[in-house]
């Protein structure tokens, strides 16, 4: 089987804007699902609300498109109700870290056997570009017209501190690495959190000096550094490049997990 067979052909092309990174993340996730060899009947995709959260609607399996921020709460119910199901959550930065922030930390604490893929475009894409908890300092959005004055959440650090068993970050440029990370996440029992930084040309890029789709992707390509390399640089007292996006595997461990199929 190929990953293309997991798409609902009748629903394509999807509604995402030209050059939106969400479509790439769906490709990578489905490729990982396909490599896992899961059956369509045994797999469920759950999401909240947002552009990113529309992803399950383009996939042939059963899915739940739930209320804003509650994807993890619904997914917890699905997984505990039927631990035989493979449950994958698609969510956005707003969905996961703003309105759904509390569900996020508690799902990580409980370490429920889910794979959570967060498409982080650092903005509320669907509602027209309001700032989110991951909007970088200085970035423009409709709610931060003079540049965001707040420090942003690091979702990976958050997931790690809250107790997730597997945490990693890649971007929509790093398709092979992202696919491998999602695959490893799916193989790891407990909560696996994969953050995929994505370009949102319409609501983020346009306002933040990325005039073309390729400009923002090029930025992600050239500003990502492996987390291991950053640690090494820190030990040797070297200065980090600025800005820098740490990518790679943040943690893989074996804390007690909930809802693991026995």
């Amino acid at each position, binding site marked *: 089987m190929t990953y293309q067979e997991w798409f609902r052909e009748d629903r394509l092309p999807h509604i995402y804007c*030209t050059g*939106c990174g969400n479509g*790439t993340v769906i*490709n*990578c996730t489905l490729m990982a699902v396909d490599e896992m060899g899961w059956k369509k009947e045994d797999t469920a995709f759950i999401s909240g609300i947002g552009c990113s959260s529309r992803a399950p609607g383009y996939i042939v399996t059963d899915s739940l498109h739930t209320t804003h921020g509650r994807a993890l709460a619904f997914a917890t119910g699905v997984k505990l109700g039927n631990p035989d199901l493979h449950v994958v959550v698609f969510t956005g930065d707003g969905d996961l870290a703003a309105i759904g922030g509390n569900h996020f930390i508690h799902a990580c604490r409980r370490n429920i056997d889910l794979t959570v893929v967060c498409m982080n475009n650092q903005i509320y894409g669907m509602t027209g570009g309001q700032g989110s908890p991951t909007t970088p300092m200085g970035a423009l959005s409709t709610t931060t017209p003079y540049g965001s004055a707040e420090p942003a959440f690091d979702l990976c650090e958050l997931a790690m501190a809250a107790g997730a068993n597997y945490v990693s970050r890649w971007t929509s*440029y790093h398709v092979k690495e992202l696919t491998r990370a999602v695959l490893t996440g799916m193989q790891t029992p407990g909560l696996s959190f994969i953050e995929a930084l994505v370009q949102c040309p319409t609501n983020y890029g346009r306002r933040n000096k990325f005039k073309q*789709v390729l400009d923002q*992707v090029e930025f992600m390509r050239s500003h990502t550094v492996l987390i291991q390399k950053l640690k090494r640089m820190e030990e040797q007292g070297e200065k980090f490049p600025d800005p820098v996006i740490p990518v790679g595997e943040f943690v893989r461990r074996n804390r007690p997990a909930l809802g693991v199929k026995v």
Partner: protein
Amino acid sequence: MKLVIDERRCKGCNLCTLVCPYRIFRPGKTPNRKGTIIPELDRPERCTNCRLRHLYGRTLCGMCQMICPDQAIRWEEEKPNEPHKVAIEY
């Protein structure tokens, strides 16, 4: 095999032009019927996947297909004696 861009799906973002090691994709120039400017293919028979997919029995490289956010890139079997016949060695 030959490389095709599905015009019904491509939205013209040009992400494929960024990833192909052979630079097979080039930004297009003329809008199609829908007003989308589809990338042009520069000698697509050079693509590793076109040449060696059957030999290896799996997708090789495939970067363009993976990054395409609109699932518009795929490979098709060629009909016999098609003008753009792909040779195994290039």
